Every structure is written in structure tokens, then in C-alpha cells.
């Protein structure tokens, strides 16, 4: 579709109305949502979703479940604090923001490629273990290194620049920036999946031995995938550091690393939309579970919700939706024969529905 877009062969009717509605909703969202919902729910979901997207890309298309994606994001966040400005008085070299950001993202992507180089020769559970080990090692390293990473305290006062007279930390500009980044990488992943690189990556996922026999450099393909996912995670990491205005070992801790896996798995690993759905669910639960139930039990609600999601739909919320849609479609097809239309819950539909 994107290729046709460039050739000018696309018309309005090609656009799925559901996507258009979604885009409209996301663009109009800050106009009716409060600052809290724009910033802490909206922007934060988009950013967590983007980190999870980088995992979805590796796991869904490449078959490599890496737990180090948040570590890559955190690394980029740390670099922004180190090369840019912070209020702690450690490092903070004061480089211009655009150099800082570019260096941080590229370094994060290279770090991701390095993680890839270490782990690509393993499969399945061993990849998870190696990347988990890297994530844990990074956590302890930044916590105990005081010269560069300022140990337990980490960095505070990490703020986005004021560009074009806009303070990008204000909720609405920050939301649109997050939305742009999320949408950009979402489309990039969608497009990339159909490119020859994406197709060969998926082929490698399905049968690496055959691809190797065909003359593909399997290892190099996988490392390249890690690099690309590092670009996504690194960009989101810079944004997350700006969102929190700080980065500390707590931002790259094991529990947060696992959160990203949960987000990606619960949302669904088969389509780039999955991580974002997972992130919205996660952020809503994290913020509002405490209002639903006795405050000493609210973590149980979060746990149960994820357990149910995984139990009833091994391929995530997205898989649930797919199945629901298939069911709806088949029941709609069956409708003429059943004689009378029915609502989903079995009650008879109003007569006008039939015409």
C-alpha cells in the first residue's frame, strides 16, 4: 500500500475506515482529554508501546524474544542525561540537544546490535536467558557505577529542549511528539515486514537451516534486525527519560524489563498494533487498579487481568479480537439461512436491521 502511495495509485476508498477513525481519534484525543490523560495515560502508553513494538518486531518477525529491549531504551535515556544536561551535577556534558539525541539513539542501536551479536546463535529459551542476563547486568552496573552513571540516584532534571518556541514537555506537544514517533515506527515496521529484508527475516524465523542453505547470511540478518529494533527502542528510551525527567537504575530494573514482555505478549505479537493495545491496558491498570479494589490487593487485580488475557488468548488481546471477528463474520454469513438476524447476545434484532 505504501509503495502504491508513492506511485500515486492510492485513492480514499483504499483506506480502511477503521484505520482512518483510529487516526482521527488519536489526533483529536488531547482536545477532549485532560492533561493527565493526555500525558500520563496517552503519551506514556504510546512510549511503552513503542518499546514493546521493538520487541514485537524481533519476536514476531524474527522469532527472537529479547528481554533487553528496555535496557537498550534505558541506555539511550542515560546517554541523553550524560551528554546533555541534568540537574544532578554528575556528567551532563551539555552537548546541543540534537547531537545528544542522535548520538544516544545510534549508540543504543549499536548496543542492541551488540546484544544481538552475543545472543543470535541461541534459540528460544536460551535467547531469553542471555538477554535477561544482559538486562540484569546492566541494572547492577549502572547502580554501582558512580563516575559515569551516578549509581543509585541516577540522573534527574533530564528535560526535552524548547524548539520552535514550544516547550516539548507540556502535555499536548509531548503527546503529539510521542504519537508521531509511535506512528512513524508503527508504519516503518508494517512496511519493513513486507520488504525483502522483512520477508527474509520471517523466512529465517520459520526455517533458518533452509535459508542458510539458500545462501542467506542468517546471523547477519538477525543482527541487523537487532540494530533496527535498537533504533526504535532507543528513540522511545530518549522520550521516556524526558517523560520521567529522570533516569535511574529503577528505570531499567528487572520488573520493568518484565513489564515490557508482558505488554508485548498480552497485546499480541503478530501485528505491530498489539504492543500498543497491551501498553494501553497496562497503563490503565497500573493507574486505576488501586481505585477498583482495596489498596492492599490491587497488584492481584493487575496479575489476574494478565493471567486471564494469556489464559484465554495465547496470542494476546489482538488474537482475541481476530477470533471474535472471524466468529462474527461466519455468523453473519449464516444469517440469511437462519431467517432472522440476531444480535451477538442472541436477542432478536429489530426488523429494520434485516433490510
Amino acid at each position, binding site marked *: 500500500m505504501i509503495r502504491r502511495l508513492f506511485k500515486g495509485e492510492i485513492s480514499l476508498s483504499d483506506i480502511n475506515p477503521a484505520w482512518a477513525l483510529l487516526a482521527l481519534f488519536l489526533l483529536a484525543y488531547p482536545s*477532549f482529554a485532560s*492533561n493527565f490523560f493526555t500525558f500520563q495515560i496517552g503519551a506514556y502508553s504510546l512510549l511503552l508501546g513503542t518499546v514493546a513494538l521493538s520487541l514485537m518486531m524481533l519476536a514476531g518477525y524474527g522469532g527472537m524474544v529479547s528481554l533487553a529491549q528496555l535496557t537498550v531504551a534505558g541506555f539511550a535515556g542515560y546517554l541523553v542525561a550524560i551528554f546533555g544536561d541534568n540537574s544532578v551535577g554528575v556528567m551532563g556534558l551539555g552537548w546541543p540537544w540534537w547531537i545528544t539525541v542522535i548520538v544516544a539513539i545510534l549508540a543504543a542501536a549499536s548496543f542492541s546490535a551488540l546484544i544481538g551479536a552475543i545472543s543470535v546463535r541461541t534459540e528460544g529459551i536460551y535467547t531469553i536467558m542471555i538477554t535477561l542476563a544482559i538486562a540484569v547486568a546492566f541494572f547492577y552496573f549502572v547502580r554501582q557505577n558512580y563516575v559515569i552513571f551516578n549509581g543509585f540516584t541516577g540522573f*534527574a532534571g533530564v528535560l526535552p529542549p524548547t524548539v520552535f518556541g514550544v516547550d516539548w514537555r507540556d502535555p499536548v506537544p509531548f503527546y503529539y511528539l510521542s504519537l508521531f514517533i509511535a506512528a512513524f515506527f508503527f508504519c516503518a515496521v508494517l512496511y519493513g515486514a513486507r520488504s525483502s529484508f522483512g520477508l527474509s527475516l520471517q523466512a529465517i524465523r520459520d526455517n533458518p537451516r533452509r535459508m542458510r542453505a539458500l545462501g542467506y547470511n542468517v546471523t547477519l540478518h538477525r543482527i541487523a534486525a537487532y540494530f533496527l529494533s535498537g533504533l526504535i527502542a532507543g528513540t522511545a528510551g530518549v522520550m521516556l527519560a524526558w517523560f520521567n525527567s529522570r533516569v*535511574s537504575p529503577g528505570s531499567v530494573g528487572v520488573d520493568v524489563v518484565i513489564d515490557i514482555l508482558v505488554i508485548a505478549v498480552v497485546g499480541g505479537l503478530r501485528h505491530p498494533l498489539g504492543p500498543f493495545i497491551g501498553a494501553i491496558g497496562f497503563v490503565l491498570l497500573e493507574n486505576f487498579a488501586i481505585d477498583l479494589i482495596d*489498596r*492492599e490487593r*490491587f497488584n492481584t487485580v493487575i496479575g489476574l487481568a494478565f493471567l486471564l488475557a494469556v489464559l484465554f488468548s495465547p496470542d494476546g488481546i489482538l488474537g482475541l479480537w481476530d477470533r471474535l471477528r472471524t466468529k462474527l463474520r461466519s455468523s453473519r454469513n449464516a444469517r440469511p439461512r437462519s431467517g432472522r438476524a440476531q444480535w451477538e447476545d442472541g436477542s432478536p434484532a429489530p426488523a429494520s436491521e434485516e433490510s
Partner: protein
Amino acid sequence: MLGLGKKLLAAAAIASLAGPAMAQDDTIKMGALATLEGAFTVLGEDGMRGVELALEEHGYMAGGKKIQLITGSSDASPDSAVRAARKLVEQDGVQILVGPLSGSEGLAVKDYAKTQPEVTFLNGSSAAQDTTLREPAENFFRFNTDGAQWMAGLGEYVYNEKGYRKVAVLAEDYSFPYTQVFGFLEPFCRLGGEAPLDARFWVPIGNKDYSSVIASLPDDVDAIYVALGGADAINFLTQYEQAGGDLPLIGGSITVDQTVLGSKGRTRDFVIGTPSAGPISDTWDNPAWNEFVAAYKEQFPDGFPSPSLFAHAYYVNTKAALLALEEVNGDLSDGGAAYREALSNLEFDTPTGPVHLDERRNAVADIFLTEVIEGPEGNLVNKTIEVIPQVDQTLGVSYEEFLAYGQVGRENPTCE
């Protein structure tokens, strides 16, 4: 049915999106933020008990207004504390927020407070120095004392009375223990005591294995100053005792508290005679304190045997919030300016003596010097040795002079 449910859901979603519902005129929304998850859960729950105790005392009323309590939870990380504070302020629309619990959280919430000038923030129990000392926020009030104040009198006591001249230091590696170590060492070193830099050991929170620390403890020190909390303290004491250690100990404010003293085993005998200092003393024989303990025990039969310093700090801060509300007759209509004025000038009697604020809105209050003894029933208790009256944040010197000591950290003071 489904249609109706969907409509309701949509309505609820729109209503919640529309931002904080305006508080009714006769209700004031108060938020309470504590660590109800993560390593400090037990402490956070006790902090919440302190909030409820104060509210219960006032019957959830102040200045003729009903108080609606909304709770928030963090996991002791600054990120989570700010997220929870933001939710309470921007979504639930609280006008007064009490919290957070832990040192680094306090620093982060103070920074957030600067972006919400209409909301009044009162500290929970967080005790890092810079929350109020450097770059304080106009609307952040701390009616509990900080970690350095808590150590008041301890350095002098162990130098003069115990005769210690050289100590090793073992503490967790973050802002609160830095503040405690500073508060202890500053007078100790000024008197001529020594604490060599290579005999200071910093361990991460939740450290399980202290064998390497124990093995590298120097032989020529008179005592070990231990500023560890909860499970960390118990782990160290058990392992040190098993390794045959026999150096006397000096305790930080949460090192020899109820969780440690209540534990079984030989560690008990080992900690007898350990001096410590803090904002409360379990055995202080004073009517106000006894009344506070009795009220705590009655309201929370499943709480600690005696309120912890977290319950105490949250109680004092909530109490201050309520008393100031009485003073302005519950009127926050001017964005809370008059209310904050009332808070700044508030002086009242807490279960641990009188408290008032300095010009940076940090408490000046009494500190208790204690020592572990064996109680009448064979249980261990902290005996009150001395009450140090009205300790201020700058420990008796002027603000400028105190700033010159520098920020708390691993090597401050250097003791040379």
C-alpha cells in the same frame, strides 16, 4: 443489555477523560501516597495507618469540611512516586497530598510540587536532606525531621560516654543512609573521632550476603555504625553474629527498630547495648506518647506492636494538614495560599513533643537518644537515654555554614 452496558462504559470513559471532577463544596480531597508495593510495602502500610489514625482522631472532618481520603501507591522508585502523585493531583483532583515514604521519592515529589503551585504537599516520612534544604518548593512542607536530624546527639554520646574513637560504617547505598551517616559522623569527627574512607561499606538495598563486608572489616575500630533497614539489618546481624563478630554496634534510626528487636535467636543478645537515635522512642514514658501508642494499638490490632517511625511521621504530617485546615475553616478557595500561610506558622504538640517549621518548611522537633536493653519480660526494647530538644535541620549552625558542609554522600564528611 449489551447496548446499555456499552453506553454506560462509554459514558464512564468520557466522564473520566474529562478530567478531575470538581470537589463538592463541603468536601476536601486529601491524597496519601506511600509504598504499598515493592521492598518497603510493610513500612508503607504502617505509614497509611498513621494517616488514618490522624483522620480518625478528627472524625474525617476539619474546618467544617468532610475529608475524603484517596490513596496512591509507589514502589519506592522516584519514577513511580511521581506517577502516583500526578494521578492523585491531576486525575483525582486532591488539594492536599501527604507523602511519599522514601528519601529519593521525596526529592522527586518536591520537584513535581513546583509544577503544581495550587496544591499543598506535605511530606510522608521521607527524610533526605535536600528535599527541603536545597532548592525547596514553596508548597512542600515537612513536619517530620530529616535523617541527619534523627542522629542528633548520637555522635557526641558514643564519643564521650562510650569512648569510641574510630568506627567502621556499613550503610545502604542511597540518599537516606547518606543523610544518616552525615548526621552521625559530623559531630563525631568534629570531636576528633575517625571513620576512614576505606572502612565505609555501601551495600545495595536488599543485599543478602554480607560475608565480604564482614571479612574486610578492619580490626582496629572500636565499633561499627550500621545504617541498614528491615531485612537488610537482620541479615547483616545474623551473619555477623555467626561469623563470630564481637565489635559493638551503633545503630541508625531504622536499624534497631521493632522488626529487628522482635526477631528470635541469638542476634537478640548481640544487639543489647546498641545506642541509636531517631524521631521516636518506643518506651518513652510520656502521657502524649502513651496515648498515641494506645490509640494505634486499638485501631490497628494487626499492626506493629508499637507504631513505627513511618506511622509517626505520616501521622504528624496529616495532623498538621488537619490543624491548619481548622485554622482557615476549610477554605482553600484562594488556591490554598492562606492555608499554606497557616501551615508555615503552625506550632503544635505531637506525641513526641512540640514541632514547628523553619523558613524552608522543614520541621524543628525533639530527637530521642536510645539504647537497646532487655525489657522486664525478656523482650528487647529501646530505652530512652536522653531527649534532645528542638533539633533544627542545620544542626545548630547557620544555614550558610551548613551548606558549606556540602551535599551528603559517601565521602561526606571525610573525617580527616
